[in-house]
């Protein structure tokens, strides 16, 4: 651009080039970048890889700008005198007149020819000062604080703090260890008044029960008199709390976070398919937190789904195949169990065998279930519907996580259609053998326990003890959602991936392996499916929306494979807030 003559300079100035695309030029730490108009300064810095330290700012919440940690130095071109042409350097940028005072990066937007300095003496002094103020009354709780290890105050204190305290006065005492809700514990001394939790409960959860009382140093976070923080989204406040003021009762004192291994996977409690991170140490899951996916769950998840993992290492888990001998279940080896299953199933005519699968199974498992049905030659294959009240945010009415995937893989519009006819068949004695995959017929599928006595042979794959297992001739221990790999399609048509966070207990096996072994045992010949990837490959060839995909291509954020028209209510709220300019992310 330096070679442009003055006659054409007007058209090729960087400001005009940027404006043509609705962008503005911003200099960050000496380098010019272009950003869309209206971008917050903090987001602009994040985009170019400079993280401005902050506490109160959250991209999914409004920006009150009350923590003052994100102070940066800002500059604009000096206003030229009337009639005077602005000066420009050889690249066409105007010189930046740096402001003597810092500004907050979270609530200010970028503008043309703006300069931002995220380092330098002024900014560093400001950060040090803010850190010192925040630490005046902060208790020395780190050894007993669950947030230690993922605490912004700790991190910024190391990076931007001054190392030693200059204050000799007594610290202000505030309520500690307050139970403000059934799942959340509040420690007011640790609170740094960022108000993220207050804004979350107000703007996202729609239950504004939190607020500040008192003033100045005595500002105290508290819950509205007579109310509790009992929203089904309350644990998200513990996630976004930058310090240990709000902590989870469930995770309280379970394990320090630095021991935990993070596994990105998805939630299986409803059709939304919330993206989650499973935090495990060794073979024990200690907590589950939401993982950001702006097409599914933003950065939130409901408490009821988050806490539904304790059964995985519970007492009720099956750990070895059980075979019923003289009305008594006995542990048998997998080889014997599969041999028994094949022999018993072959003794019944194909039309008298039914398979009841589960909407909680992955696409790969459903695909093998279909192959199993084809191998047997049985037309009776159904899933168990599971519907309940939805909430207006993330919990869908369909509590099966993979109904959409089942429709695709089983090539049917209503995968639950045949359940009633199978139930009638069992009652009338037309169906002699039943293969139940991951479902409990008595509690969920409308069977009576006495119905199951009509069957000649009942085999169940399951993870937990249940009434159906009591009646089953053969119980095969399977894997829980955090123990297996596979893929599911959520209600809005997004193909997402499950990953293995922990190993299966005892002799339990991956569901797809059990199905493969059953098929092999029934057909008597080997197939060339050895890995879950092989199953996906075979499935991708058979199911058009999956063509060209592999398990690894799905990615941690999932891949949209079809448009179902289903809208996740929380995302609709979030997009409205973004369109209105209330939030940034």
């Amino acid at each position, binding site marked *: 651009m330096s070679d442009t003559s003055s006659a054409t300079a007007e058209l090729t100035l960087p400001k005009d080039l940027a404006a043509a695309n609705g962008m503005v030029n911003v200099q960050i730490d000496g380098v010019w970048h272009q950003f869309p108009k209206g971008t917050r300064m903090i987001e602009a810095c994040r985009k170019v890889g400079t993280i401005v330290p902050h506490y109160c700012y959250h991209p999914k919440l409004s920006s009150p700008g009350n923590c003052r940690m994100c102070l940066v130095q800002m500059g604009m071109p000096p206003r030229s005198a009337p009639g005077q042409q602005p000066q420009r350097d050889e690249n066409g940028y105007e010189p930046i007149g740096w402001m003597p005072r810092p500004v907050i990066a979270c609530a200010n937007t970028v503008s043309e020819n703006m300069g931002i300095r995220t380092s330098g003496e002024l900014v560093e002094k400001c950060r040090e000062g803010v850190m010192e103020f925040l630490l005046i009354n902060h208790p*020395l709780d*780190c*050894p*007993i604080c669950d947030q*230690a290890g993922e605490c912004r105050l700790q991190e910024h204190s190391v990076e931007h703090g001054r190392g030693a305290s200059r204050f000799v006065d007594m610290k202000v005492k505030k309520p*500690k*260890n307050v139970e403000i809700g059934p799942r959340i514990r509040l420690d007011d001394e640790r609170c740094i008044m960022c108000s993220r939790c207050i804004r979350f409960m107000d703007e996202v959860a729609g239950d504004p029960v939190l607020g500040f009382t008192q003033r100045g140093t005595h500002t105290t976070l508290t819950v509205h008199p007579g109310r509790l923080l009992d929203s089904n989204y309350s644990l998200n406040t513990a996630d976004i709390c930058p310090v240990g003021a709000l902590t989870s009762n469930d995770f*309280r*004192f*379970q*394990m*320090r976070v*630095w*021991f935990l291994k993070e596994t990105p996977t998805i939630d299986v409690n409803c059709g939304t398919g919330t993206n989650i991170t499973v935090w495990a140490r060794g073979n024990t899951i200690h907590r589950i937190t939401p993982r950001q996916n702006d097409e599914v769950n933003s950065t939130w998840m409901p408490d009821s789904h988050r806490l539904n993992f304790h059964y995985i290492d519970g007492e009720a888990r099956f750990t070895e195949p059980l075979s019923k001998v003289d009305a008594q279940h006995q542990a048998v080896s997998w080889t014997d169990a599969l041999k028994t299953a094949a022999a018993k199933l072959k003794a019944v005519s194909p039309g008298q065998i039914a398979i009841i699968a589960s909407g909680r199974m992955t696409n790969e498992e459903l695909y093998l279930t279909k192959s199993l049905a084809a191998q047997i030659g049985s037309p009776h294959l159904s899933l168990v519907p599971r519907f309940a009240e939805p909430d207006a945010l993330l919990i869908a009415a369909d509590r099966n996580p993979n109904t959409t995937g089942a429709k695709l893989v089983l090539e049917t519009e209503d995968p639950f259609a045949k359940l009633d006819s199978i139930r009638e068949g069992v009652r009338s004695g037309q169906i002699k053998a039943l293969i139940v995959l991951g479902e409990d017929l008595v509690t969920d599928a409308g069977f009576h326990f006495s119905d199951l006595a009509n069957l000649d042979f009942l085999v169940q794959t399951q993870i937990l003890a249940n009434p159906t297992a009591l009646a089953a001739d053969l119980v095969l221990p399977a894997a829980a959602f955090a123990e297996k790999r596979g893929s599911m399609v959520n209600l809005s048509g997004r193909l997402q991936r499950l990953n293995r966070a922990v190993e299966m207990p005892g002799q339990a096996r991956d569901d797809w392996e059990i199905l493969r072994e059953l098929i092999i045992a029934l057909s008597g010949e080997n197939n060339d499916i050895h890995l879950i990837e092989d199953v996906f490959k075979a499935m991708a060839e058979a199911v058009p929306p999956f063509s060209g995909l592999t398990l690894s291509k799905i990615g941690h954020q999932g891949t949209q494979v079809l448009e179902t028209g289903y809208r996740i209510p929380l995302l609709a709220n979030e997009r409205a807030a973004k369109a209105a300019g209330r939030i940034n992310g």
Partner: protein
Amino acid sequence: MAVIKLQRPKLNFGEKIYFGALIKGFILTMTHAVKSLLGKSASADSMASSGLGVTMQFPEQRWDEHLPEYYRGAPALVTDEQGRERCVSCQLCEFICPPKAIKIIPSEIPSDDPWAKVEKRPKEFDIDMIRCIYCGMCEEVCPEQAIFLRKDYLITGLKRADMVHDKKRLYEIGGVRTGLVNKWNELK
């Protein structure tokens, strides 16, 4: 790095036949042998020897009083003057321990406990003394002055299970330690 070439020392005839050195060494050995029989060997008194040289008749004789201040023996947990168990199970020692000898299961202090404000204490605290390498990192990392390496060095057992010190045993070895920072007291 500079290369320095060394010259072999030139030996004279007496040194070359090494017989002289052999005799020299023999004389030195015999001198010490005679001295030890007469009870005159160096540090025989201070090491409380049995009279025959500097040999100490373990286990009847111990050199416990010779252990230096900085001696690193078995790690142990301590209580303070008020009888409070100082460990809050922050698990930093478990994290830092190079041979992974420490295993802690944290728990909450019930609200009726006089030290309920501390909120957290170990439910189980096991140190596997077969694994422990006595490096002292646990003591160094402890933010609560709760774990110390004591002078106990005779850690024996007949079974592997005997070699795992549980919380009770650790407090037995550690005992009470005074003069520490009591940050959990009401006023300091």
